[in-house]
């Protein structure tokens, strides 16, 4: 369990460093950086490389935004195995729904509760 924490810290940290380099060295906006990372996550899963990383680093691979791309592909592939090509479209949000619905729900609750502090 302790080793899992260690690798979660290291791998998660390293993915963030990649993000920082994209922002500082290539002068990308945060939106561009995150977009690139998401697409990278999707590609890595397409190549079958992201699952091993999750097994290895746990939350270090599931918490960074790259895992969003990974789980989109994952959901699509799961459904595609059952229903063929149509499944690609219908299964996309199967796995990722938690992140997006949490963001929507909490976003709205946040807007009800808070106002910007500046």
């Amino acid at each position, binding site marked *: 369990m302790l080793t899992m924490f260690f690798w*979660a810290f290291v791998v998660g940290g*390293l993915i963030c460093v990649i993000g920082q380099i994209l922002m500082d060295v290539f002068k990308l906006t945060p939106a561009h950086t995150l977009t690139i990372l*998401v697409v990278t996550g999707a590609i890595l899963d397409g190549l079958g490389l992201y699952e091993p990383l999750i097994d290895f680093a746990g*939350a270090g691979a*599931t918490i960074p935004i790259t895992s969003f791309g990974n789980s989109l592909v994952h959901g699509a592939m799961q459904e595609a195995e059952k229903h063929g090509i149509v499944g690609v479209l219908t299964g*996309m949000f199967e796995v990722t729904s938690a992140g997006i619905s949490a963001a929507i729900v909490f976003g709205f609750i946040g807007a009800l*509760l808070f106002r910007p502090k500046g």
Partner: protein
Amino acid sequence: MANEKRKNLTPVQQEYHLFEKERETKRPIVRNCARAFLVGGIICTIGQAISYFYMYFFDFTEQTAGNPTVATMVFLSMILTGLGVYDRIAQFAGAGSAVPVTGFGNAVISAAIEHRTEGFVLGVGSNMFKLAGSVILFGTFAAFVIALIKTIAIQWGGL
């Protein structure tokens, strides 16, 4: 991209760019990376702890614990954003707080809070995804293309 832009500049502009660059405060890249590593690592470690929590106290497996973990992280992000703390952390952490899913939550929630003054429908509703929308769009489209290629390859490419 940067080179293409440079070609369109007049010699005077190019000369000025070099002149200005020399006097510009450089981004402290190494320090920023160290901070991103530290904060990003801590956020992922917290995520790991939360997923263990769901595995031991509820009947989630290693595979399914991801969903409640992500939701919890986004909830924490809402609290920190609402209290006006997340942007302070981010000025220190850079990508360390932007890349984890809490950063995605922050992008959605900060936009929702910010545009409340324009009403819930036109303000919160239409602006909520003004920052995070591109992540969803490109993530989804990339996943679509990749899954499609993979499915076709498996079905017709003969396993």
